[in-house]
């Protein structure tokens, strides 16, 4: 008891000590196993390539220069386009769902749970489910063949369509949840006021609901775009050899190609795009929401 009292007294004299003690385990872990590795990568990206993987001393910007080669820029550009398309598709599909959940009274928690459930079920299993649907002997082709719509299986798997479907299927919950959160706070009286003042349904949507749901739309778009930029499993399993995304390029440099510095430089290419996306979304969010055209 006296030891306990002495500890408490010491902490009362110096509250900062208590704060530091509580933060130490988790904080140090994050510094050691998140910040330090990122800094090491930054270092590796400007060093010489080791023969058997790894790095050797000597400063160079060669790897960044190599990344600017059209061959690699094309992969980066493809990744950006696909991530953007997936974001737009998620927005178009996710907004109605978020609206229905926010408008529902009796089934709200069930509807929410049904959105959250796939978010937590294994990404690998869900990607396999897409393969099972899309492959030549898959459910879709078999059904179309049986119905006589097609004679030969159509190539669905290993196409850009497959990768996009996988991205949308994988990240849709990220879009629905933030939009729902902002729609839930929307004051229904505002929509009614717009209606009384003669706004048609689409006008009410475009000039009242969407501007007020903007924080959710922006947050959701960011939450879809960022993981889509870094996606690896989706393009690996659904895209085949031709539909390489930047995540696959990075992984390949660290495993098969054994060119660490180049892989690190390519990683910071991804990071640069992600940072730009974050900054753009912050700018959009902080713009005066009261000014609605």
């Amino acid at each position: 008891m006296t030891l306990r009292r002495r500890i408490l007294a010491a902490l009362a004299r110096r509250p900062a000590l208590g704060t530091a003690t509580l933060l130490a385990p988790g904080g140090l872990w994050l510094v050691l196993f998140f910040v330090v590795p990122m800094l090491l990568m930054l270092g590796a990206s400007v060093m010489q390539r080791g023969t058997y993987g790894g790095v050797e001393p000597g400063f160079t910007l060669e790897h960044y220069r190599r990344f600017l080669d059209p061959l690699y820029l094309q992969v980066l550009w493809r990744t950006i386009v696909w991530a953007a398309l997936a974001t737009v598709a998620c927005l178009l599909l996710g907004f109605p769902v978020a609206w229905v959940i926010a408008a529902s009274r009796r089934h709200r928690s069930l509807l929410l749970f049904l959105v959250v459930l796939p978010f937590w079920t294994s990404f690998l299993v869900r990607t396999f489910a897409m393969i099972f649907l899309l492959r030549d002997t898959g459910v879709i082709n078999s059904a179309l063949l049986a119905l006589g719509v097609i004679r030969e299986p159509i190539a669905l798997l290993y196409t850009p369509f497959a990768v996009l479907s996988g991205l949308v299927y994988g990240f849709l919950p990220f879009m629905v949840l933030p939009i729902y959160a902002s729609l839930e706070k929307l004051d229904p009286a505002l929509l009614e006021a717009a209606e009384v003042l003669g706004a048609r349904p689409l006008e009410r949507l475009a000039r009242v609901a969407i501007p007020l749901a903007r924080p959710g739309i922006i947050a959701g778009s960011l939450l879809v775009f960022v993981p889509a930029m870094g996606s690896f499993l989706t393009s690996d399993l659904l895209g085949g050899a031709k539909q390489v995304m930047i995540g696959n390029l990075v992984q390949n440099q660290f495993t098969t190609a054994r060119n660490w510095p180049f892989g690190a430089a390519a990683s910071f290419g991804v990071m640069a795009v992600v940072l730009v996306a974050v900054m753009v979304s912050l700018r959009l969010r902080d713009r005066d929401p009261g000014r609605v055209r």
Partner: protein
Amino acid sequence: MKPAPKWLLAIAGIVYLLLHLPVLVLVLFSFNASRYSVSWSGFTFDWYRALAARGDLWRGLRASLTVGLVSTLVATCSGTLIALVLARRRFTGRRVLEGLVFLPLVTPEILVGISLLVLFVLAGLPLGLGTITIAHIAFNISFVVVVVRARLDGIDPHLEEAALILGADEITAFRTVTLPALWPGIIAGALLAFTMSFDDYVITSLVSGAGSSTLPMVVYGMVRRNVEPTVNAISTIILLGTSLLIYGADRLARAR
């Protein structure tokens, strides 16, 4: 808000169908007798029986459970402490800490995995279950902080102050007032952390050495080689397990 119009309900219905149909189809065909075609040719448990004979799956399951339990325990303890400090104390460097917790959540998995691989190799740590566990703790801390903090924000700090005024010391006040109210949040955070760890493939595969395959890594190998409906069977079992965990976490997070 007014009830949603019919056409909007229809769109949402289709999206819900798209969200759940692929997995339901997958589960359904894990009971299909036919090996190669997706036409229905009778009900069977054969694929589940075939799973039992696969030693690599059992080893993978054991590895995943070990990594999952250890990383969940460490991440939940350290994450809860961070959440407590962030929710209750004002100090310099608070913003930096919030950024430190937030960043791993928005960094693409592949980059987290690669950078850890670089660290482990340069530090000379042998790749294996140990490095996998370290990586899982790192990404799980942030999840625990977010979940526990959400719960903490709903707990009135005046309750603990009242206990202090009534003569309890800080430890007693925390143990008898805040902790019982916080408990569902901690358990929910732990269950989510375990699920994240149990599911992870990308980071795990990068920091694992030869001979230390977790369950998702074994399943990935099966998907790659397209091994018959046994993949459907193992997927169904994984889905069932994680759904139960998440359902539990969800119930706890809402518990009063």
